[in-house]
């Protein structure tokens, strides 16, 4: 599907989503509380078939977090970017590890580095840091006088 077709199709399916302009790939912003249902729709709706989640990241905007999901359909070869704004004081969003198995590790990484909690995740533990580590290293306000050297 081309970008325009995808945009119109998504507009029908997800009326609550807002589109971002001027990006390389179709980008939508959704409400995190509706993420699970939307993810299922994106994965299983024939014509969309977004089965390949190739990047799951989190961006710390100092006032809020944004979860960014890059996904692709191996059948139709279109790419969609889904964003969700999270509250910085209590970042929480539904897990999609049962829809895309790759999300299991990616969400653990996001939890480890940002502190985002994924509800219903089968095994939400720190991935890179040790179990006893305090703090969320990739947040913009993370202070570590021992390990971080500011030039």
């Amino acid at each position, binding site marked *: 599907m081309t970008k325009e077709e995808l945009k119109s199709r998504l507009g029908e399916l997800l009326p609550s989503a807002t589109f971002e302009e001027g990006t390389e790939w179709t980008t939508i912003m959704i409400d995190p509380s509706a993420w699970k249902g939307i993810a299922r729709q994106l994965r299983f709706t024939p014509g969309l078939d977004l089965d*390949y989640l190739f*990047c799951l990241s989190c*961006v*710390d905007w100092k006032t809020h977090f944004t979860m960014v999901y*890059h996904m692709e359909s191996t059948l139709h070869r279109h790419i969609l970017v889904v964003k969700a704004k999270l509250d910085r004081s209590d970042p929480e969003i539904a897990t999609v590890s049962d829809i895309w*198995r790759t999300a299991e590790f*990616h969400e653990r990484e996001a939890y480890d580095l940002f502190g985002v909690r994924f509800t219903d995740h089968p095994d939400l533990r720190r991935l*890179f840091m040790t179990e006893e580590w305090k703090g969320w290293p990739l947040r913009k306000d993370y202070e570590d006088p021992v390990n971080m050297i500011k030039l």
Partner: protein
Amino acid sequence: MIEELSTTEQGELVINIGPQHPSTHGVLHLIITLNGETIRKVEPHLGYIHRSIEKMCESLSYRQFIYVTSRMDYLSSHINNHGCALCVEKGLQIEVPPRAKVIRVLMDELTRMASHQLWWGALAMDVGALTPFFHAFREREAINDIMEETCGARLTMNYIVPGGVMIDLHPNFQHKVKEFITLFSSKIDEYDDLVTDNVIFRGRMEGVGYLSKEDAISYGCSGPTARGSGVSCDIRKLYPYEVYEQLKFEEIRVTGGDCYARYLVRMGEMRQSLSIIGQLIDNIPEGEFQAKTKAVLKLPKGEFYSRVETARGEFGVYIVSEGGTTPYRIKFRSPGFSNLSALDHMARGHKIGDLVAIMGTLDLVIPDIDR
């Protein structure tokens, strides 16, 4: 290296493998739950070489951060750098001169071959055949010599800059690469004779570590791991960059899903890389090797994503820029990370000896996973 951790209630044994390994995979710590000889669960523990590269890059300029990625997947260092440079060029709308494009692709394919050669030697060594390792490294030396002459380094090349390459090719480059092509075309047949058709090797590889097509896509596997299960995912074919559109090469896909299929994919890729190098080496266009760019690069506000095909799979660079001289947030989508998540699924029900074979065909480089 292997010590017993505990025994679960069902009488299953929990043992450690790593983080020090006799093979060249890096510091990977696996906790395996065994029932007798059969694996019930594999749990990787990562983070032994986590250097928080993503955080580091937030304080490096757009010219500097490229070279940190060489240290991530050090076997495809050139290709990683290429991905970063493509992302920066996308943001700044820089047009790369044709000569630089061809040089970059040549170096990419040489790096891919070097990586696959090391993979082949290490896999054969893991499975028990100790000699192919030396053969692989002997041929790899030829590529290292070529790299050293032009780029100055053998492993972490640091050769690409946004806009082109750092310096022009060495005058000897064409001659040496042509010599290498003649040398390796005969050697790769030797490799097939030695290992690929060996009955014992096939017995160790066939039927082991099955990954179905749907699982491969769901686990986010890319590169030879996914192509061994029949998934078409070669970024060079699907979303061509640089000069890949004008080249004649095939995407090697094997529908088998087991270790032997993944092995055949990489052997096929080596031959394809050889053919690509052969097509390009006589047709390097004259001209500039670097586009004119400002000394200090500032990407405009926005987000940019570039994808390249490394030896391990799809490498993605996601830059979120706020208009400054350093990126606001960089995310590196590493191929090994997703490939590793499929290890548990593939290894269940097999023996420990098979686990070694599966990890070998996944071609994991742990610094790539841990970043």
